[in-house]
């Protein structure tokens, strides 16, 4: 097991998540895919911590987890709000930001 191996696995994970963000229609699924991407980033942080022999990486990963949780909480609250106001969780429906 080398650093590169872990990084590539994480990159693959990230790309899977990205694919999900780009293709899924439901907002819940988009949030779910974003989770996968964040998870990939966390793997990287822990890997750097181990192979770089520095505790900050893990500390950052811990912070990132907390941040991700906050993000999910707010994101899902928004999804629920959108579902309530638009009657749909389809990512293509809301258009309030359209120029």
């Amino acid at each position, binding site marked *: 097991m080398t650093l590169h191996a872990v990084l590539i696995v994480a990159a693959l994970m990230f790309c899977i998540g990205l694919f999900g*963000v780009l293709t899924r229609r439901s907002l819940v699924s988009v949030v779910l895919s974003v989770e996968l991407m964040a998870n990939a980033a966390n793997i990287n942080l822990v890997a750097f911590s181990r192979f770089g022999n520095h505790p900050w990486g893990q500390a950052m990963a811990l912070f990132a987890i907390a941040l991700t949780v906050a993000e999910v909480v707010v994101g899902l609250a928004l999804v629920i709000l959108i579902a309530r106001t638009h009657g749909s969780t389809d990512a293509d429906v809301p*258009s309030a930001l359209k120029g």
Partner: protein
Amino acid sequence: MSAALLLALPIAMFALLAVCWPLRHTGRFAGMLSAAVAVACFGIAVALFASGRSELYEYPWLVRSGHVIASVGWRLDPTSASMLIVVTAVAACVQIYSLGYLSHEPPKDLGRYFAWQSLFIFAMVGLVVAPNLLQLVGCWELVGLCSYLLIGYWWRKPSAGKAAVKAVWVTRFADIGLMTGIVVLYGATGGFAWDHVLAPQVATAVAALLFVGVMGKSAQMPLHVWLPDAMEGPTPVSALLHAATMVAAGVYLVVRAWPIFHAAPDVLVVMSWVGGVTAFTAACIALVQTDIKKVLAYSTCSQLGYMIAGLGSGEMLGGYLHLTTHAFFKALLFLAAGSVIHATGTNDIREMGGLWRKAPWTAGLFGAGTLALAGIPGFAGFFSKDLLLEELFEAGRYGPLVLCLAGAGLTAFYMTRVMCLVFSGEQKERVHHAHESPFVMLAPMLFLSVPAVAAGWFAGPFAERLGLEYHFSVTPVGGIATIFALGGVGLGVARYGIGQLTWLAWPAAATFLASAPVDRLWAAAWRQGLLPFARAAGWFDRYVVDGLINLSGWVALEGGERLRLLQTGKVRDYVYAAVVGVVLLAAWGAMQ
């Protein structure tokens, strides 16, 4: 006692009247106070002149790097001391006279009038005692301000407003030259003293520029157009500012800055020609005027022309002497004219006639002034005019000399015309109810009539005081002038007194002159030149310069309208944009 009092008293009076409005609103009392100050000033001036002392006080007014570049203060020397007497004497007479002449004015307005009169005395004294050209120019502008305010004394009258503004416009236009002149002087000498020795070119430039200012203030052709209009002011104002003192400031400037002018012979030649032309043409115009004050106004122009022409000969005494004598007899004439107007209620000499029976004192005083102005031997005007013509002859300025001689004849003629039309002949409608003026008006005139008649007799001591020489002698030029003057009087009496020689009229020329051709030229320059130019500039600014600014704003707005379409509002599109960014970053990293 010092010249400082002459400055302090009037300005204190002005400040008092300006700030303390209850006093100002008393009108007549304020006027008496102000007149008392003016009389006191006259007394001080006489005392100073008699003491023969010299004073110089300078306060550093403007500094530069800690060094003085301009000072203010007073310089008392024979030139300024003699001028001070003229100024304060006329001012005191005029203020006393005004108490009678303006007695029917509302008290508020009267207080305002005397405040400005006090300010004028301050400014004029400041001009006369100026230790350098900067103070002279500063006070020059201040007397211009007083002129503006006093011409516009009846500001409710539209014509008075126009005349006041016109006076400033024209004199300020000339002051472009004056200001440039003293700036050049400063550039050359680092100061504003008039007694520096200047290089010939510099002297010529400075003198020429200063002379432009003189032409405006002293109403020389073609910048004389404001003076006749200035007669819109009350008659005492015309006597003080627009006959005796302020308009003579230009001549006084030349006298003061004589070292500069003397070093610029080319400018002197121009001066004598300008003066000669003004003396002659203004006299011609005076021939056809029907307003008694306008006659005197053009006569003032003409006499100022004499002074300028005389100074242009390269000798100072004639012009300066004429300044002093003219101040007295022209002030007298104006005050007498005011008395006539006061008596008849009109300015138009065609509506008068036979007034001498109703107002004998006025008639006599006006007559004395006329004789002095006409240059009848023995009267003040004779000596100064004679000397001035003599100087022109000596200097070989024959062209201006001829013009001046012809003007002398015309002067005698038009003054006789006024005398005859106003005082002799049968009484017209308006004259029936006329009355002699009160003593408060007659007394100043009587006082002024003394120097108007006799000032010339003291030309010798006067010249001596200035360090010059004067001896009266009978010369051919003087003889010709006297013949012209007597001839003018004779023809005038024949034409207007007896009614003979009716062929003596210039209908075509009169029509032309009465239409004020130079005025119309200036008006056209204003109406068709400057004003449209300014309007064009305003339009250009509003619609081209500002248009370009608005154009840039509009481009930004329109660009925003287009660019906002990039915002689709779909989350996915923004993620794609981020993807593009990641790929570009990676590519950039790969290239490193």
